[in-house]
């Protein structure tokens, strides 16, 4: 009996750790992405950038295996039956954010977009905003598991950062299409800016759902 109890507690602890680790991965990927874009703007497709891309890919792989593990454990141990579907959706959505960071970083690597110097500060600003958005999303989601009373605070930050990133990306696109660069370049840069800004949009969608889940989580 004592052993059963111990095993139950250790299984619970292990799953708690996995969920925490999964959230850590979002923060990791957001920070690495910020660094990678700074390196890219300075050195283009350098060895350093390739390493950072590889690092992002590894984080994405780790997050995938953690997500599968969490989903598997939630179902096989029949845990949180009332909120399981919500938690699974939340984890899937968070994984989409990580995937998008990976996709965008890889897109920079493949397409090698040529941002004129005057746009560097703005693209850095946009990347910071989407990274902040993802980080706050991760904190809000972590709070959902532990202290759901603060979910709302971090959700507001996500909304704020998403609105800021929309503004920044809009201004950038405007400036790019007003410039004299060839149309092909304009379209490529606009598309890549749109994809970066999309990360914040996904985080916003996640937070919308998270707030609903939080209402359900309250007894």
């Amino acid at each position, binding site marked *: 009996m004592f052993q059963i109890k111990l095993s139950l507690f250790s299984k619970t602890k292990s799953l708690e750790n996995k*969920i925490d680790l999964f959230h850590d991965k979002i923060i990791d990927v957001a920070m690495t992405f910020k660094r990678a874009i700074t390196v890219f703007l300075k050195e283009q497709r350098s060895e350093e950038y390739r390493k950072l891309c590889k690092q992002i890919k590894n984080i994405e792989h780790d997050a995938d295996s953690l997500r599968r593990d969490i989903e598997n454990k939630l179902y096989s141990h029949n845990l949180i039956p009332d909120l399981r579907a919500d938690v699974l959706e939340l984890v899937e959505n968070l994984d989409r954010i990580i995937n998008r960071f990976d996709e965008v970083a890889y897109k920079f690597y493949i397409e090698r977009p040529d941002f004129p110097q005057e746009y560097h500060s703005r693209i850095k600003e946009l990347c910071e905003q989407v990274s902040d958005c993802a980080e706050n999303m991760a904190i809000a989601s972590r709070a959902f*598991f532990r202290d759901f009373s603060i979910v709302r605070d971090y959700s507001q930050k996500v909304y704020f950062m998403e609105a800021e990133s929309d503004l920044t990306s809009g201004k950038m696109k405007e400036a790019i299409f007003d410039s004299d660069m060839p149309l092909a370049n304009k379209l490529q840069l606009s598309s890549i800016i749109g994809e970066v800004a999309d990360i914040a949009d996904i985080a916003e969608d996640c937070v919308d759902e998270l707030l609903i889940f939080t209402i359900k989580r309250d*007894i």
Partner: protein
Amino acid sequence: MDISYFIFLSSGLFLGWSLGANDAANVFGTAVGSKMVRFKTAACIASFFIILGAVFGGSGTSKTLTELGTVNELAGAFMVALSAALAVYWMVNSSTPVSTTQAIVGSIVGWNIYCGFDTNTVILAKIVSTWIICPILSGCISVILYYLIKAYVKRGKIHLIRQDLYTRIGLILACAFGSYALGANNIANVMGVFVDASPFHAVNIGKIQLSGTQILFFIGGLAISCGVFTYSKKIIKTIGTGVMSMSPIIAWIVVISQSIVLFLFASQGLKEIMMNMGLAPLPLVPVSSSQAVIGAVIGIGIAKGGREVNWSILGKVALGWVTTPIISASICFVCLFFLENVFNLVVYH
């Protein structure tokens, strides 16, 4: 031992079976319905603790019923239990939250009227008052627990996964406690009227001595357990849809509130403690677990703002207070007449 005793006892066993099927669903229906505990696990725990409660805690409530009317002939006891069972069956079919206690009290009064014996009005008033107190008390306990648990969940910052584990353990413990309380409180309904005619003698099992009444209650407990295993799953699936939508924590609050109320009205030890402290003790009366559950659910509904409360259910409960005893008393009266005049059986002396 006379075989006819067991034939007459069959109505009590039938009543026990229906109590197991209906009332046990109140104890662990929410836990099973919310998929937090497997049916088999819940049924095993419930059966064990119902028998334990019946054998070791059932004497207090049984005494109160005996004071209301001492059914002194087996044929009479048979009909009292059968009328109660039929009344319960009828009320369940009409979807009224029924109480086995109200049915058995009605039957005993019916027996008293048929035999021309006076009904102890003081005891009757005491029993009837508990029908009203029971859901109110259960509601009050659930409101207090709701606020306490809500504050604890908010301030405790427990991880959702760990909270799930604690809730699961809580539900299993509540299921055990609720089953013990149900056995202790409601065994009197099932076997109370057969106590006076019990042919069982005391036996020793190791260091434990069981009286004849306790053996009778053990048999009643087995009948309740039989109802738990054979029919309660169906009850949970068919009438348990309302409780299935509850969150596991709310389910726990409902079960524990109901269990506390059942225990308060069954515990001889608690009664003595209250008397020693100079407090007015609660009467040891079998109360309805269904109505205690309704009280608890309404209590939580009110605590949440009252928007989700289905107030019409209160009307049904009140209707049950009046109709159940009248129906069972009428059935008992008519059937006793047939038993005595058609089958030539002695129903009282």
